[in-house]
């Protein structure tokens, strides 16, 4: 008999998980409270950037995922606006230069052959950079993709292989039988399965509260600006050094003023608009945009690309990134609850990690050896002091 799995959440992670499970012949039902990619996956940018990840388990996972992306358009029979345009991290100050040189040294040790470019080399690579930019990193294999297209393509491909997709269905409860999860309750309907995989991103803790399970995922708001369409001038992912220096040295979490947390990330979509981020702010489940933050992001962008002063912003949006205290997603089985798996907490790495997360979960569920050590990603790493 076929194994029956319910995946809760229709974002980049849930749809990918549903797809790879279906591919293994599992009987999958994906349940989503709103629509595909209607939460975080529809309110983010599009980078598949390896350079921005700290060397370690997350980078290892991301590198595997990046390889999977190369063949994904063909596999899913869909245009994902995938492009391997490379990526650069700019240094504006001596301090950023030093922090990023340290990071690059670690990345090279981890096997990522990131180059360091001088001012002139950076300018040749990317036209329009301001004169004060001291230099940049460069990696050929950073890529980008349209996360909405990826989510829909995974969902459709899963559906073609027999998965059932239930949209507009809010899961209110996990159904238990002793220490076993046996299904979900959705409106007043009960659905039973051998396994439930919760891929609800920032909303994961809310569902798991129903079984008194604490999951340390905190919504972290990120705001992004959308410019008018422009002629092609950015082919790669551009990150400001402040953003990455802060990400690596964990200074942002302490700042209470969201304006201070603004760091530049910039890329151009295939329709020509720029996506310009971003902020990082703990503001609960509120995803209202803020004019002061828009202004700070605009300032960061025009400081790096002075010609953008002539360019208008069409709109701005904010999304909630599922932050975890150690910057790693929570993947795999949950200790103490048979039949419950998690795939959530990717913060800003969800786009990059979507394919590998789905595949990893499918392999674990099917009892295959994923060839990846899952232990750094288990929920139990946060529960080490709790005796079971």
């Amino acid at each position, binding site marked *: 008999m076929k194994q029956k799995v319910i995946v809760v959440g229709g974002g980049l992670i849930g749809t990918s998980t549903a797809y790879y499970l279906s591919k293994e012949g599992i009987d999958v039902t994906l349940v989503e409270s709103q629509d595909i990619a209607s939460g975080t996956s529809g309110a983010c940018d599009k980078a598949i950037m390896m350079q921005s990840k700290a060397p370690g388990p997350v980078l290892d996972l991301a590198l595997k995922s990046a390889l999977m992306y190369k063949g994904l358009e063909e596999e899913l029979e869909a245009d994902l606006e995938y492009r391997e345009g490379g990526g650069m991290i700019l240094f504006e100050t001596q301090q950023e230069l030093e922090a990023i040189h340290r990071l690059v040294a670690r990345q090279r040790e981890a096997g990522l052959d990131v180059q360091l470019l001088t001012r002139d080399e950076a300018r040749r690579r990317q*036209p*329009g950079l301001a004169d004060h930019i001291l230099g940049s990193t460069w990696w050929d294999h950073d890529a980008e993709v349209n996360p909405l297209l990826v989510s829909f393509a995974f969902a459709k491909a899963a559906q073609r292989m027999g998965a059932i997709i239930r949209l507009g269905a809010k899961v209110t409860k996990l159904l238990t039988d002793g220490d076993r999860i046996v299904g979900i309750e959705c409106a007043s309907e009960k659905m039973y399965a051998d396994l439930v995989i919760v891929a609800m991103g920032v909303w994961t803790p809310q569902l798991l509260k129903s079984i008194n399970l604490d999951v340390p995922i905190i919504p972290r708001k990120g705001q992004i600006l959308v410019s*008018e*369409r*422009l*002629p092609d*001038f950015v082919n790669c992912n551009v990150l400001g050094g402040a953003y990455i220096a802060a990400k690596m040295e964990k200074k942002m979490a302490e700042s209470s003023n969201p304006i201070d947390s603004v760091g530049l990330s910039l890329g151009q979509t295939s*329709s*020509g608009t720029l996506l310009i981020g971003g902020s990082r702010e703990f503001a609960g489940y509120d995803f209202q945009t803020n004019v002061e933050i828009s202004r700070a992001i605009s300032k960061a962008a025009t400081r790096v*690309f*002075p*010609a953008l*002063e*002539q*360019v*208008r912003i069409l709109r701005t949006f904010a999304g909630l990134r599922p932050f975890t205290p150690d910057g790693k997603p929570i993947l795999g089985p949950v200790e103490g609850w048979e039949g419950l798996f998690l795939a959530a907490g990717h913060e800003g790495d969800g786009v990059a990690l979507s394919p590998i997360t789905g595949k990893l979960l499918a392999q674990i569920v099917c009892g295959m050896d994923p060839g990846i050590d899952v232990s750094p990603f288990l929920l139990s790493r946060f529960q080490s002091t709790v005796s079971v």
Partner: protein
Amino acid sequence: MMTNTRLFSTNKDEGQRHVSFTFNGMELTGYEGEPIAAALLANGIKTIRTCEVTKEPRGIFCGIGHCYECRAEVDGISNQRTCMTPLRSGTQVSSHSSWQIEEARK
């Protein structure tokens, strides 16, 4: 193709001032203060730009500033709605944006 479609008025000299402007470098005339889109139409020009995706012609669709189909670069500012932008003497209208990343660099 470029026929003048302006209606003749019996009392046409009631203070409306003829001004000259350009569309993609072409010298044209219109009334000062009328929407640029109207001035273009009066000169027989219906295609204000082409769609970036389909390459199909685009021009006045709603005429009231909602649909953004009639947008053009006006005096160096891209994506202006020509149906909402008044014509002035010497206005330069262009189907294409002249914005360039390097040109504006100081």
